[in-house]
């Protein structure tokens, strides 16, 4: 048998039908659904008298639109948001799919709820009408975002029409230095490859620095594979993965667990498997990083200065000029001199318990800068409950942070949590696009510990100075 990558193995296990030209019907094991990209798909089913083929493999949770303030029990003020959430309530009920409503303590960001409840398991195919579905690749599951037409296609047929992508290996060797996190890894990889560097590929992240990460850290790395343009990001499952999955509500039990483990242990890339592209980065070369522009590839170590457009070539020159104007930055300014108005800790990138622990560690016994607006939005109700139990919520509140309910919140500003024009935010989320966090808002992406450091000092800060 010819050697295979992890991606090859998962792909081969899910081919329901293949045409001569390689066009494949790929079977989907888990379909995650949220309120923004699904209403038109369910409407499509109704119009054609189709049903959901596998309601037991379909899991819905509202996250993008939901307010994160405590008064949300009184309902959603914004009419359009309310209608979208109500549509998901109704569609979930009408089509008999699994559902975690806003009132359920298990509600949260779809990419945090899926793994937490044991829906996401190694070797699965996972899709969702959301680009950050790449998150689930941390389990060695082939996971990627799809559009609404494909959501409808999966609802109706439990398959997707696919062509196979190419294989890319991203190896992070050795150990990370203190203060360097999974977020710094994933941003640094995008800085290296560019936002289109992964287009046409499925990335497998490997190497000692990846193996050393917890599941939370691995999810952060894979989450931003899409920001590098890749179809999906993968990490081979290992003992850390199995330990995380074991005992979760929807993970297999007993004999089925043993059978699953037997298969999961075969899910790795063979030694002499073929890679179409290989990137190697030394873990020790990665520094705590921040973004300075309006593309996730605009990333530099916190010790650097704002670049000059003339440092770039081709179309990037104009793009950088536009970015710096939008961001209100002058070339040559030290990144650590950039003053911040707002700090946002949360999102499917960094809204898990380990992220909150890392931020709380920096904030313990400290206060945020006067006038700073700072919020923590746990990724799920269960993350929130755990953080309260561990005393993290108290640390945040005593430091001056708002302690919110679970949702996508300020990552994409479809809910009341938004930036005003010109407001500058240090954010643990995944996109720094123009207007992403609110029209005219300025976003600097960084790790939870770096975000906490900025909240304390009032400017972008090298977290190592506070450790």
């Amino acid at each position: 048998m010819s050697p295979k990558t992890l991606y090859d193995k998962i792909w081969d296990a899910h081919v329901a039908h293949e045409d001569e030209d390689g066009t494949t019907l790929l079977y989907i094991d888990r379909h995650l659904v949220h309120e923004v990209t699904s209403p038109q798909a369910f409407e499509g089913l109704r119009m054609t008298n189709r049903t959901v083929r596998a309601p037991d493999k379909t899991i819905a949770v509202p996250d993008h639109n939901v307010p994160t303030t405590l008064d949300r029990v009184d309902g959603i003020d914004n009419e359009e948001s309310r209608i979208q959430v109500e549509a998901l309530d109704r569609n979930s009920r009408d089509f008999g799919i699994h559902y975690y409503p806003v009132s359920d303590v298990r509600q949260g960001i779809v990419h945090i709820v899926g793994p937490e409840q044991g829906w996401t398991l190694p070797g699965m195919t996972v899709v969702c009408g959301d680009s950050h579905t790449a998150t689930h690749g941390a389990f060695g599951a082939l996971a990627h975002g799809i559009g609404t037409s494909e959501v409808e296609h999966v609802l109706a047929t439990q398959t997707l029409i696919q062509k196979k992508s190419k294989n890319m290996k991203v190896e992070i060797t050795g150990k990370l230095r203190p203060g360097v996190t999974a977020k710094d890894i994933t941003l640094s990889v995008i800085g290296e490859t560019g936002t289109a560097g992964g287009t046409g590929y499925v990335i497998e992240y490997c190497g000692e620095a990846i193996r050393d990460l917890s599941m939370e850290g691995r999810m952060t790395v894979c989450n931003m594979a899409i920001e590098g343009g890749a179809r999906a990001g993968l990490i081979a499952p290992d003992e850390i993965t199995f330990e995380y999955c074991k005992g979760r509500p929807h993970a297999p039990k007993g004999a089925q667990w043993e059978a699953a483990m037997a298969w999961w242990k075969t899910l790795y890339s063979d030694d002499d498997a073929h890679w179409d592209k290989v990137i190697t980065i030394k873990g020790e070369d990665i520094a705590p990083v921040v973004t300075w522009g309006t593309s996730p590839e605009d990333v530099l170590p916190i010790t650097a200065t704002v670049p000059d457009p003339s440092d770039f070539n081709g179309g990037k020159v104009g793009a950088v000029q536009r970015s710096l104007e939008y961001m209100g930055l002058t070339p040559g300014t030290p990144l650590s001199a950039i003053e911040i108005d707002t700090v946002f800790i949360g999102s499917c990138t960094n809204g898990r318990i380990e992220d909150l622990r890392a931020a709380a560690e920096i904030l313990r016994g400290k206060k945020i800068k006067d006038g700073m607006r700072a919020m923590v939005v746990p990724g799920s109700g269960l993350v929130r409950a755990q953080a309260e139990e561990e005393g993290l919520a108290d640390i945040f509140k005593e430091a001056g942070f708002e302690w919110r309910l679970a949702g996508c919140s300020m990552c994409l500003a479809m809910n009341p949590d938004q930036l005003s024009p010109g407001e500058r935010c240090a954010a643990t989320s995944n996109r720094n696009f123009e207007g992403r966090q609110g029209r005219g808002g300025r976003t600097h992406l960084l790790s939870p510990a770096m975000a906490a450091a900025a909240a304390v000092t009032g400017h972008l800060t090298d977290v190592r100075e506070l450790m």
Partner: protein
Amino acid sequence: MDKFTTITGIAAPMPLINIDTDMIIPKQFLKTIKRSGLGVNLFDEMRYDDDGNERPDFVLNKPQYRESEILVAGDNFGCGSSREHAPWAIKDFGIRCVIAPSFADIFFNNCFKNGILPIALPQEAVDVLMKDAEKGANARMTVDLEAQTVTTSDGESFSFEIDPFKKHCLLEGLDDIGLTMEKVSAIDSYEARTAQQRPWV
């Protein structure tokens, strides 16, 4: 789905790289539960000022580009989120074809589900087409899917590659779900087989 065969129309030049889906259709317009009516908000934050007035210097607000049917843009067009609202807004505006050196994966796939043809061409070819688009309404560009060519107003022609299956579906206006339903027995037997092999799924 609408068929795509040939179009001859005005091409709007947008010489900017990394045009992301938040630029194409900002999040506040994702709250709709319909597919239609998004054209007026295409490129909303670039197209209108804070008071909702048109910015006269934005390409699609210029008189000669208001009826554009083709868009010529920079590298990595459509990067960012999976929102199909982006191609819905493009189509609703009247644009049926986007030409760029490269496209983000999910956006690229979403186009085909909506009768929009995304064409990836080398930078040098896009540069020529960009110049042609800059001539305005008197310069009509022609896109011929059957022949797989883009032709400038001066008659300079470029061939493009396209997946044969995607081409077939666009030319015929085929519905993916209908096509897959014809293979339902393959899905049935896959499910029966894997229920034995991986019962925990």
